[in-house]
């Protein structure tokens, strides 16, 4: 894992605040030349510190009014291939997040849907039919706030 110095952290803080900044804008904020800043951003990306970029869309405006988090327990350990379950769940377009977890559940999913009826359709047709899916616990998201990672 790459060692981060104070300048790297300053770059990450700027981009964490506004991911649309280009290398020139970040350079100005952290007091670097543009090429030097560009090289550092490139290095942060290549080494996986910056693991991805994304466009933040207005979910409601695009008709996705419901977000549900699911906890799933596998029903028959050993008899069903974990790989089959994982491959199938990852392929569902409405499922944005799949985490393998340790605790009361085996997997944690984030599902987006147009409304509760649409969520029910996804749950019945896609989730409950997954190979090996056992108990499912659903929690409908009401509010969410995130804070930047500590740098």
């Amino acid at each position, binding site marked *: 894992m790459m060692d981060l110095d104070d300048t790297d952290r300053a770059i990450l803080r700027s981009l964490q605040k506004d991911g649309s900044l280009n290398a020139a804008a970040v350079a100005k904020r952290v007091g670097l030349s543009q090429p030097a800043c560009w090289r550092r951003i490139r290095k942060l990306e290549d080494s996986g510190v*910056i693991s991805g970029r994304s*466009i933040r*869309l207005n979910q409601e405006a695009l008709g996705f009014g419901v977000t549900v988090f699911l906890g799933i327990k596998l029903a028959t350990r050993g008899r069903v291939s974990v790989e089959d379950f994982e491959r199938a769940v990852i392929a569902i377009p409405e499922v*944005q997040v799949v985490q*393998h977890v*340790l605790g009361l559940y085996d997997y944690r999913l984030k599902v987006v849907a147009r409304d509760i009826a649409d969520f029910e359709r996804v749950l019945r047709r896609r989730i409950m039919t997954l190979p090996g899916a056992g108990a499912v616990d659903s929690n409908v998201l009401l509010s969410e706030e995130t804070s930047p990672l500590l740098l």
Partner: protein
Amino acid sequence: MQDIDDTDRKLLRLMQHDPAASTSQLAAQAGLTTASCWRRIERLETAGVILGRDIRIDPKALGYEVEVSLRITLDKTHSNAFDVFIAEARKIPEINEIQTFLGRVDVRLNVLARDMAHYQDIYRTRLLALPHIADIEALMLISNLKNSDILPL
């Protein structure tokens, strides 16, 4: 809100899958001229459909090896349990996500720690001290198999 047509959706799909693509690359893939593609993106931004751009940082790269989802049920006999709880949770820097739910769980906190000893320390001294907790269950992250915010447009 302005209507979003099929071309807008196509453009948004392309942008979601390749956030770093240039306007001319997007235009070519969507079958638009660069100028009209640029105008559409501009309009989607002004209308608040595109809210911004984000980078994702790997917490492990910052030295956070442990990530735990704490699912909390609150003691709702206190009328302001939610507000008081969330106000206190905001003060803990290792919490990077606070979500409220309709379901069996009331609140979920995402907690980052350097290692298990650090987590244990936060858990005992800060998290268990949060007000109005009726029940806590923890899910420890083993691996992220999929992590995207791509909408199935």
